[in-house]
């Protein structure tokens, strides 16, 4: 099965084949050669809560969370969020414009919370790293700043609103 994956901004081509006793996984980082891994199913073992992954002589206790296009892999108190697209999805992607998976035309809520204050209005130009709004969650006020110079296209929340994870709060114009 063919996938395209992105981890920390780096893109990979991925191929997975399932055998009776082993997995064959091949990885190719953009501009590099393919690397092939043979993983015995007894080395990638589902143990109730976790996966015990014996990989290149090391023992990892891992947990993989997510679905569709985004997976977070936990291992040894570290984690990676990996975007992964199968053939179908790649099709949809290609239809969407915008600079790659990482593209960011909006400000989303990273967690459930409450809007305390909004510093910008429609049409404003906000310089990179300047505050857009303050959101309260878990009794802390979190200042959300612009990741780049942005022009406000639309503001979908107002002071006092409660927002859920992933809710779009502000839309920006395309980068100029």
């Amino acid at each position: 099965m063919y996938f395209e994956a992105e981890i920390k901004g780096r893109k990979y081509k991925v191929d997975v084949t399932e055998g009776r006793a082993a997995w064959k996984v091949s990885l190719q980082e953009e501009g590099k050669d393919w690397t092939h891994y043979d993983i015995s199913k007894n080395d990638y073992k589902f143990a109730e809560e976790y996966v015990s992954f014996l990989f290149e002589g090391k023992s990892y206790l891992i947990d993989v969370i997510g679905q569709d296009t985004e997976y977070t892999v936990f291992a040894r108190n570290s984690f990676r969020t990996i975007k992964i697209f199968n053939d179908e999805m790649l099709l949809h992607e290609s239809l969407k414009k915008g600079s790659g998976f990482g593209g960011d035309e909006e400000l989303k809520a990273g967690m459930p919370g409450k809007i305390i204050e909004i510093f910008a209005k429609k049409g404003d130009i906000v310089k990179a790293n300047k505050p857009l709004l303050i959101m309260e969650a878990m009794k802390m006020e979190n200042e959300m700043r612009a990741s780049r110079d942005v022009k406000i296209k639309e503001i979908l929340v107002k002071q006092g609103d409660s927002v859920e994870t992933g809710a779009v709060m502000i839309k920006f114009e395309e980068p100029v």
Partner: protein
Amino acid sequence: MQKPFNKILIANRGEIAIRIIRACRELGIISVAVFSDADRDSLHVFLADEAYHIGPSPSKESYLNYRKILEVAKTAGADAVHPGYGFLSENTTFAKACVDAGINFIGPTPENIDAMGDKISSKLLMKKAGVPTVPGSDGGVETVEEALSIAERIGLPIIIKATAGGGGKGMRVVRKMDELESAYRACRSEGQNYFANPTVYIEKFVNDPKHIEIQVFGDKHHNHVHLFERECSVQRRNQKIIEECPSPSVPNEVRLKMGAAAVRAAKQINYVGAGTIEFIFDNKTKEFYFMEMNTRLQVEHPITEIVCGFDLVKEQIFVASGRPLSFKQEDIHQKGHAIEARICAEDPVTYKPSPGVIRACRHPQGPGLRVDSYAYPGYEVPIFYDPMIAKVITFGETREEAIDRMQRALTEFVLTGIKTNIVLHKTILDHPKFRDGSYTTQFIEKNFEVIEPLLFKEIDDPMFLIAAAITAYNDRKSKDVRQLNITSNWKRTGRKLQLRT
């Protein structure tokens, strides 16, 4: 040994509620938990002997609703209440209400709380007791203009604090004049929102200081002792995340001076129970200044329990029941070294809270280790309360052993489903400035701006990619499997129907 109380209601939640439940159980005292809507499945409810619902999820309507809590205490027949830390622990009205209801409040007297509750008057009290204090506005600052003029007088950097604030809330450091106004307003608004009091005051900000605090204890017979220091300089967003005991930076003669000053402070207000005098510590001059007194048990009390060898919560209970302190100053010695890491449900890079459902959860175990946690697999960390879900405490013969042990403990701590700061802790523990003990309260701010590479160096990507790829493969496959099941079910049902006809 006769029981100090028969039944104690714990007016708190999470790990500290559990800490108190344990002390009660070891003393044969019945423990009563209270819980909000969001906390029906919280571990403190499971572990207590009894548990009662007290209201909706927001603290204001549950854990801060002292009338409701008092009512439950009466219904349950509790003869004492332990407030833990935060919530009602430093609320004079509640303390008074308990006393009036004939229920013992396990903590300082209302007078003690009042005396130290206001940062401004407490500072004057401490001056009187001969405890060193910091230059600043000797009172509330009512206007931006006033704030500006004070800033000019004592010079930048300054720190603005909400008089009623605490725990990093209503607190801002100002290093540039043009930051002052917004910081001033922010403190006032947070003071208003969280502590119903917008008053703020200003102090000289000792540049690059350490945070050293002294544990004190008093009883109802005018005995006061100190249990030496804790260093709590590792902070993010002005909140402690790693504490250690003893401090690697306090020379013994200074340690004794600080202890003596802390005992003077406690005697000045005839303090009862467990309390902590926080000092700003200048690591170059080894000068120390009174910052504030916390008239309650601290989150980080375990490192003192381990190094001094006493159970502070049991001692609180005994003292509240009227017994004299079970130890004298000369019985108290530091032995070995202890470190505490606060494990929070938050993004280790942005420090943003990351509530959600815990999946796998296996706590560290083994030698030289203590864990106070309320996490369990399947538990949903609510968004309403503090993001700290566990404390990992390690100890050893030496500081080095305690640190290595903490690294070991965190490496075996499995906690998935939510983001935690475990990996941040591991990065801190490996940092040369932490290893050599020279770190200050600005340690994280200064050294962890671009933290990601540090955090994620441990393992390379292929392992992660392979795991994600195999999972994606299985997810895709399982869809087809579901299709199959439906058809086969259909077949089975089909057969059933035939049989019926």
